[in-house]
């Protein structure tokens, strides 16, 4: 079966996996403190921040892609910043895609972790502090291990959602082989060019991959539920 996938397709698959991995790592680093804050705070800003984090879930990718194109462009604030730093423009680059992917998959990382922290309740942290653990200490030795199922779900969903990303990449990628041409845009190209055989093979890979990921997620959840009992 894999013999049908050509050099170009392998490059797209490699790039997709690279993008998904880096995005997931960045997201876990950003989303964990954010999820903690959302789960603990009484701030009036909570609702607004929560809505902002969820926004990429409801907005069409075209909106996100369009704004990114404007913001990353020479007249956009981010484009001005990167140019003044000597980085040039980030549109049509791996870094640009990374920014897009992180925003696009943010709710998929924040929400499972936030729910895990909320489900834990205040008690474990209070117990830890009576045992003289500093808040930071308690966070790493108590809260994080207890939120492990949430972290796992966030990891899997961020990764899978980035692999399935299409609209944003199409709008800010520029279809550069090895830099911004990922599997989903490659499939789009094949379909548009009426190369249905190649489109079929790559789409098949995507379906098998996504199915496997979801099965793995279900099994993981089952195992952690059993461990919790």
């Amino acid at each position, binding site marked *: 079966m894999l013999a049908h996938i050509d050099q170009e397709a392998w490059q797209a698959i490699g790039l997709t996996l690279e993008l998904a991995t880096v995005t997931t790592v960045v997201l876990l680093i950003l989303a964990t403190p954010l999820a903690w804050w959302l789960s603990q705070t009484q701030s009036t800003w909570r609702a607004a921040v929560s809505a902002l984090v969820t926004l990429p879930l409801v907005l069409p990718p075209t909106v996100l892609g369009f704004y990114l*194109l404007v913001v990353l462009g020479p007249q956009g604030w981010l*484009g001005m910043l990167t140019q003044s730093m000597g980085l040039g423009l980030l549109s*049509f680059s791996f870094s640009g895609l990374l920014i897009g992917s992180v925003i696009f998959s943010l709710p998929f990382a924040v929400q499972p972790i936030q729910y895990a922290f909320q489900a834990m309740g205040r008690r474990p942290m209070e117990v830890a502090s009576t045992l003289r653990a500093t808040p930071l200490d308690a966070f790493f030795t108590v809260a994080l291990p207890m939120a492990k199922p949430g972290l796992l779900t966030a990891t899997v969903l961020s990764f899978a959602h980035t692999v399935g990303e299409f609209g944003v990449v199409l709008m800010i990628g*520029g*279809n550069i082989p090895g830099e911004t041409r990922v599997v989903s845009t490659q499939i789009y*190209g094949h*379909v*548009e060019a*009426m190369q249905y055989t190649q489109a079929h093979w790559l789409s098949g890979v995507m379906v098998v991959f996504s199915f496997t990921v979801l099965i793995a997620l279900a099994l993981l959840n089952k195992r952690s539920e059993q461990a919790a009992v």
Partner: protein
Amino acid sequence: MLVIHFKHSAFIDYVPIYTVLQQLFLRQLCTWRIQAACSIALCAFNVQAGEVRVATAANFTAPMKLIATYFERDTGHTAKLSFGATGQLFAHISHGAPFDVLIAADESTPQQLIAIGLGVADSSFTYAIGTLVLWSANPTLINNSSQILYSGKFGKIAIASPTLAPYGLAAMQVIKQLGVTSMVTPKLVEGASIGQTFQFVASGNASLGFVALSQVRSNGVIQNGSAWMVPANLHAPIRQDAVLLTAGKDNQAAKAFLTYLRSDTAAAVIRHFGYGL
């Protein structure tokens, strides 16, 4: 239809045992008769005013809207317009999308439709020839010449995908003809369509790009930025063909529409938007 239902009612008259069924059937026949009468009336009406469902390549959106307005005014027919990338429209048509004519952005798609029996043989013709222009949103970047391509003093250069869009293929031919392939390739970005390519350049994310003249020209002049009109001898002509689809082969409005597309009125609109003929 009339013949059939006379036969049936005669049949039912001689079989009294099915009275209930008979009544139901007769009621149904009445409905059919009314429907038949209605559709005959409609048919007669259709000769004067029909509807044509037009699938149009996205780059021809603006001229098509205007042509359709004139067409409706002049013929009394109605034109229902849909827009999309030519490749997408092909995929939709080959999966049964209800269109009578295709106004494509290339010449190969109509030929392909004819080859697979979805287009009417010999019905395709070139309705417009695209003009390629190297354009930048920056008013001082391109000094009405190809010089900029040799200098290499620019960020990204955008073209439409050569495998998806005829304008992209033409742009690649120009780059090759000018001998700037090695200079340009590392800076090349591709839009999925000529529309997206224009968006890349207009937003400044790409410093310049090969776009359609119809995208940057209004009222006969290029309004913004700077440009180089690409001489037509540097690439194969970008022929945009129209074709009558099999679904519309008996539709008078569809035929009228294609005839209208070749009229002087349509030609004036097509030229006004920066296409050749």
